[in-house]
C-alpha cells in the first residue's frame, strides 16, 4: 500500500519526463546497442568520463545503453525510474535547498512559504532530465524557483559534461530507440548496422575484438571506407567521437535485390518482362 502510494506520488513526474524530456532544449540521444551479445568493452568505453564529456560537448544530451548480456553496469548520475530513489531525491533536494537558503541568510522556512508543493516537482524533473546534481543546479541558479530551475538546466546541460544516462538489457522496441536517436553507437552485427543506415542515422560501429572469428569487422571496415559510417575499436572510440564529422557521411544507397531476382528468373527459364 505504501509503495503504491509512493508510486502514485512519483508517477506524474516520471510520465512528464518521458514525454518531454527536452525541457527547453532539444533532446539529442546517443543510443548504444550491443545486440544479443556480451560486449562489456564497448559499454565500458562509452561509460568513461572522457567519452561522456566529449558527447556532451558535441551537443548530445542523453545516453541510452542497450547492454545485452553484458555484466558491466553503466553508472547513472541519477537513478530515474526507481520510486525509492525518486523519494530520496525529493527529500534530499529539500534538505540541500534548506542548507543553501540558510547559507544565503534567508529564512529556512522560506520553503514552506513558497508555492512549491510538492517541493520542486518540476524542477526535480528538470534536474533529472539533464542529470545535473541538485547541488550543481543550485549553484548555477541560486534563485531555484521552478521556472529558473528549468532555465538553468537548459543552459547548463551541455556545459556540465554530464549526460542523462540510462540503460537496459534487452528490448523489443530497439527500432523505436534507433528512430529517436541522434547518434547510434553499435556493435558490428550486420542487422544492426543496416537498420541504422536505413534510418539515415549517424553511426559509429565498434568492433568486438574478443570475438573468435571476427569476420564482422570486414563489413564495418568496407562501409567505413565508403564513408557510410565511422569505424572504431573500444580503445579508439573516444578518438573517433572527437574526430567525427557528420558532414562527411555519405548516405547509404537503397538496396537493390533486382539483379539477383533477375538472374534467378533467367536461370529458371522465366522470361523477364
Amino acid at each position, binding site marked *: 500500500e505504501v509503495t503504491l502510494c509512493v508510486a502514485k506520488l512519483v508517477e506524474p513526474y516520471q510520465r512528464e519526463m518521458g514525454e518531454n524530456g527536452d525541457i527547453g532544449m532539444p533532446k539529442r540521444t546517443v543510443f548504444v546497442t550491443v545486440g544479443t551479445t556480451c560486449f562489456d568493452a564497448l559499454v565500458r568505453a562509452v561509460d568513461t568520463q572522457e567519452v561522456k564529456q566529449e558527447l556532451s560537448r558535441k551537443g548530445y544530451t542523453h545516453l541510452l545503453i542497450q547492454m545485452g548480456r553484458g555484466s558491466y553496469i553503466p553508472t547513472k548520475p541519477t537513478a530515474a525510474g526507481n520510486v525509492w530513489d525518486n523519494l530520496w531525491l525529493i527529500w534530499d533536494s529539500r534538505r540541500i535547498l534548506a542548507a543553501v537558503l540558510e547559507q544565503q541568510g534567508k529564512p529556512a522556512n522560506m520553503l514552506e512559504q513558497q508555492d512549491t508543493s510538492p517541493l520542486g516537482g518540476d524542477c526535480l524533473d528538470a534536474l533529472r532530465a539533464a542529470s545535473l546534481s541538485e547541488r550543481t543546479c543550485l549553484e548555477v541558479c541560486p534563485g531555484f524557483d521552478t521556472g529558473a530551475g528549468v532555465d538553468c538546466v537548459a543552459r547548463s546541460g551541455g556545459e556540465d559534461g554530464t549526460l542523462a544516462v540510462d540503460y537496459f538489457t534487452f528490448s523489443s522496441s530497439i527500432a523505436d530507440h534507433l528512430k529517436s536517436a541522434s547518434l547510434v553507437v553499435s556493435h558490428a552485427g550486420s542487422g544492426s548496422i543496416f537498420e541504422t543506415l536505413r534510418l539515415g542515422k549517424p553511426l559509429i560501429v565498434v568492433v568486438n575484438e574478443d570475438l573468435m572469428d571476427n569476420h564482422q569487422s570486414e563489413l564495418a571496415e568496407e562501409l567505413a571506407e565508403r564513408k557510410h559510417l565511422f569505424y572504431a575499436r573500444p580503445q579508439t572510440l573516444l578518438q573517433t567521437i572527437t574526430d567525427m564529422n557528420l558532414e562527411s557521411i555519405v548516405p547509404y544507397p537503397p538496396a537493390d*535485390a533486382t539483379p539477383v531476382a533477375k538472374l534467378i528468373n533467367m536461370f*529458371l527459364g522465366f522470361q523477364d518482362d
Partner: protein
Amino acid sequence: MVVEDLIIAITITAIVIRILYVVHRSSKPLSIPTPQPISTLIVLGSGGHTAEMLNLVSLLQKDRFTPRFYIAASTDNMSAGEVTEPAQFMQIYRSREILCNGPGTCIPLCVAGFLFKVVGIQWSSIFYVESIARVRRISLSGLLLYKLCIADQFFVQWSQLQRKYPNAHSVGCLM
C-alpha cells in the same frame, strides 16, 4: 575377384560420371519452353541472414515461385516472427528450387537436394547468396557449396569476393 573388382569399378565410374553430369547440367540454365510455377524452399538463418533473404524473397514474383516453403532452425525464434506471408514451416525435400544464404543449416539441405538430383528423384536448382557481411572472406558454408559445385548459381554481394571466386555472380547489396 576380377569380376567383382570390375563391377565395383564400373559402379564407381558410373556414379562419378552421373555426379559430373549433374554438376555440369546444374551450371546451365534450365531450358523449359513454358515454365510452370516452381516450388521453392527458402532456408532462413538468423537475424541479418533472415532480413537479407526476406528482402530478396519480397522481389520474387509470387505467382512463379509457388508454393514457398520456409525452413528455419528450431532455435531461431526471430525468423518465424518475421515471415509475413503465409508459408508453412516444414521440411520438404522435394522442391524444385532451393534458396539459401549462409548459415550452416543450409548445408545438409543443399547436400540432400544435390543427392536427389544425382539419384534422379527430383531435379532442383540450388541458389546460394553469400551474406552481405562477407566482404573479403567467404563463409564456410559458402566455400563448401562453391568448391563442391553444389550451388547452381552462387551470388556474392561484394565485387572483392567475385574476383576471388570467378564463378560467382556479383549482384550488389541486398540490404
